[in-house]
């Protein structure tokens, strides 16, 4: 028996409302961004004379190009290393399963609930002691550690589902653990790895607290962390602030639209399997 017509209609209607409400703030930003920069904008208006130049101004005044480079540097520092380290650990815990592996896994999983705010004070003094404070490394190193519980857990969940026969067969064939890892396990792990890569990219790109606290110069932060600087820079012009914020959101949205199937699957995978 299918859902009744009226229920389905009501559901569709609610879904439409949810979709409109989801888009509204973004459209509202666009509307503000296209209004004249020197006046106080009004809510949603059809742009009769769209000021596309606002985006150019915001790009220049906000040093957006430099911010993108800084963000890219932080992402490159965090994501590849995280993937490598987590894959090794996930393989060790999921496939090799050494004595005491379960305890190690619990040790990592315990880190999943730690709010970043709880660590931000000691992280500040740690990076000061290490001499990385106010450089991008002050954000890169802690993020490697903070993302590790999730990354290890994610990769272990992949490796534990790889049939044991595969690794046993290659072991019988006389392959070393390293050979088995490189030639059999790694190719199979590509989907799990790419999903993790997308998630880590987004979390790093959108990371706010760490860059705001650990890097004094906003131009050396992630783009998200620089949004506070934008608020100061454009405090007199709401259109420019919105244009700048939209510029900052765009790369993440592009990545999302390109990889959206993997991304949605990655986001949903967990709960569905559970």
């Amino acid at each position: 028996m299918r859902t009744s017509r009226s229920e389905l209609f009501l559901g569709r209607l609610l879904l439409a409302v949810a979709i409109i409400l989801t888009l509204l703030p973004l459209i509202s930003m666009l509307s503000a961004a296209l209004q004249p920069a020197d006046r106080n904008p009004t809510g949603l208006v059809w742009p009769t004379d769209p000021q596309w130049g606002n985006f150019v101004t915001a790009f220049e005044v906000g040093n957006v190009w430099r911010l993108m480079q800084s963000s890219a540097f932080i992402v490159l520092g965090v994501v590849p290393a995280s993937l490598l380290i987590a894959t090794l650990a996930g393989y060790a815990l999921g496939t090799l399963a050494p004595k005491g592996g379960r305890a190690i896994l619990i040790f990592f999983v315990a880190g999943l609930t730690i709010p970043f705010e709880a660590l931000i004070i000691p992280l500040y003094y740690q990076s000061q002691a290490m001499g990385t404070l106010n450089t991008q490394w002050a954000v890169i190193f802690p993020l490697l550690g903070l993302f590790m519980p999730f990354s290890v857990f994610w990769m272990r969940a992949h490796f534990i589902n790889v049939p044991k026969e595969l690794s046993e067969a290659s072991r019988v064939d006389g392959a070393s653990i390293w050979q088995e890892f490189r030639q059999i396990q790694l190719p199979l792990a590509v989907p799990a790895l790419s999903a993790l890569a997308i998630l880590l990219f987004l979390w790093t790109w959108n990371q706010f607290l760490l860059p705001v606290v650990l890097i004094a110069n906003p131009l050396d932060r992630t783009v998200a962390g620089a949004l506070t600087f934008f608020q100061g820079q454009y405090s007199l012009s709401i259109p420019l602030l919105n244009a700048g914020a939209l510029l900052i959101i765009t790369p993440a949205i592009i990545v999302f639209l390109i990889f959206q199937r993997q991304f949605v699957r990655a986001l949903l995978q967990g709960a569905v399997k559970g």
Partner: protein
Amino acid sequence: MKEATTGPVRDTGQGEPVATGSAPTGPVVAIPKQGKRKSVGRAGYAAWLMLLPALAVYIGFVIFPMLMGLQYSFYDWNGVGASTFVGIANYTEVLTNPVLLGSILNAITLIIFFTLIPIGTGLMLASLIRSMRQGPAASAAQTILFLPQIVPLAAAGIAWAWMYAQTGTVNQFLNAIGLGGITRSWLADYNTALPAVGLIGSWVLTGLCTVLLLTGIGKIDSSLYEAVRLDGAGWWREFFTVTLPGLKQEIAVLATLTIIAALSSFDIVYTSTQGGPGRATLVPGISIFRIGFTQSDVGLASAFGMVLMVIVLLVVLPIQRLSKVND
């Protein structure tokens, strides 16, 4: 605890955490026991060698700072000069100072907006639509509902600060439907600032909850629905006897994620209200930031950090426990 030494390995990677774009915190999940493998010797050493880098960064940049924070929390220190041991005075301060308690209370209030509204909306939509049909419309809907997960929370704060502004879209809409009398600068009003900030959280999380619950409801055996309908059950009974139990796992995961997001909110508040007006939207994250870096009371800020960590655990662990019961 005995572990099976023979027999098939039962673990099939259950309870993988769900990820969100907003924060890398996943739920704590019970880890099914692994069957023990004969992996002593060569493989054992290799395994530990492979674990070493992960353990090093995790201990170095999470566990070590946590212990440092624990140590700071027992001292009175301004970050530069000498420090004095003060015992549990900082903790007493956190648990008695009305300002700090107020920020904890605000965070708990945010749970209504970050958890109840998104999951409630998601459940309602899921039970009405039952399953998203495959097709371009469904995938477009999914893409749009996921957008708030992609936008940095800090940018969501900026977008909504504009929505809520005196000349913003919210007031424009209210004027249009004849409610011009209640328009105001929503984030500047003591009474409306906290709910307004909370609704930003609802905006961020509702799409995720909806898509996840829609996926989950599609997996419930449809014969269960047929049976309960044949019994003549109405929408409510169907919802409570089939839908809700069938989605228990998804709800537990989402509740964990969204409660953590509510208790540790920072980005949204920082870019929309900075905790104001007054202390109307002060949350623990903002308090820690201010106490630690503006007032330079490192010990108190660290103690608050520890308390926040414990609060999150106290809320999250029972949910995990509950969701496992009766499975």
